[in-house]
């Protein structure tokens, strides 16, 4: 259950019952200047691996990315 909260560094697990894949993709597009990404779809999670470009930003950018995705979920429903 807590797997999602163990995002340390640059790997985030989004619960696919709570976050849409298209929303995650759109958020990645919005943060494309900060990091390169790789998406994997597991049984219950969408796993996103992020690589910061030229050490731009920090862990807070990743959390901002999560907030952005949640904002889109609220606006798109």
């Amino acid at each position: 259950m807590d797997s999602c909260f163990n995002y340390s560094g640059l790997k985030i697990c989004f619960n696919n019952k709570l976050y849409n894949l298209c929303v995650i993709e759109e958020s990645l597009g919005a943060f494309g200047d900060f990091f390169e990404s790789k998406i994997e779809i597991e049984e219950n999670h969408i796993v996103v691996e992020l690589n910061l470009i030229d050490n731009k930003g920090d862990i807070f950018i990743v959390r901002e990315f999560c907030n952005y995705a949640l904002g889109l979920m609220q606006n798109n429903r």
Partner: protein
Amino acid sequence: METISFDLKEKDAAVVIKINSKIYPLHTVYSASYVFLDRCYIMLDGDPEKEILVELRLKKDSNLELGVLAREFFNELLNYAFYEEQSRKNAPLRNTLLRAALLSNIGVQEFESEEEKCNEDLEDADWSEIEDLEDEEFEDPEGIAVPWEEKYGENSQKEEENSEEKIEISDDLNKEQTSEAIFSDDLQQGNFVDKQTEHSEKQFEEED
């Protein structure tokens, strides 16, 4: 089972809120979370059909207290639950009003088409009886049936012509008077005014 609770993680500066999704559904949690996006970092997890977990993590230089933040989140949940319940109750009335507002435009179009039909019917109607009535002679001692233009239009023109003539006459008189005033050294200003008043009185009498 607790309806709602939270676990403080002081080391990580985060709090995890557990929400019973039967009381606060997923869309209510989304709405409440959206309000907190500017104050903290939020991550959702759990099962939307059983229990939803919300992690609130403080931002970089935030001075907020996690316990207070969590309780405010509960309040926001209740706020949106109430709002959505009211919205659900008012939905039929809202939809009716919207439908009425949108359909009123169609109503105008229908009215216009009906008006066109009426005009067509009037054009196709048999007006011979009314035309016969118009041709018949009838008594009009008060002059009610006389059109306004016939009654006043020509007369008013005549009046205008008369008034123009009068103005011309009065101009001639004025010229005579001024010539008198200029050439007679004995004529004083008072006498000149008296002559003018006499002339205007004469004009009024003629008009009467």
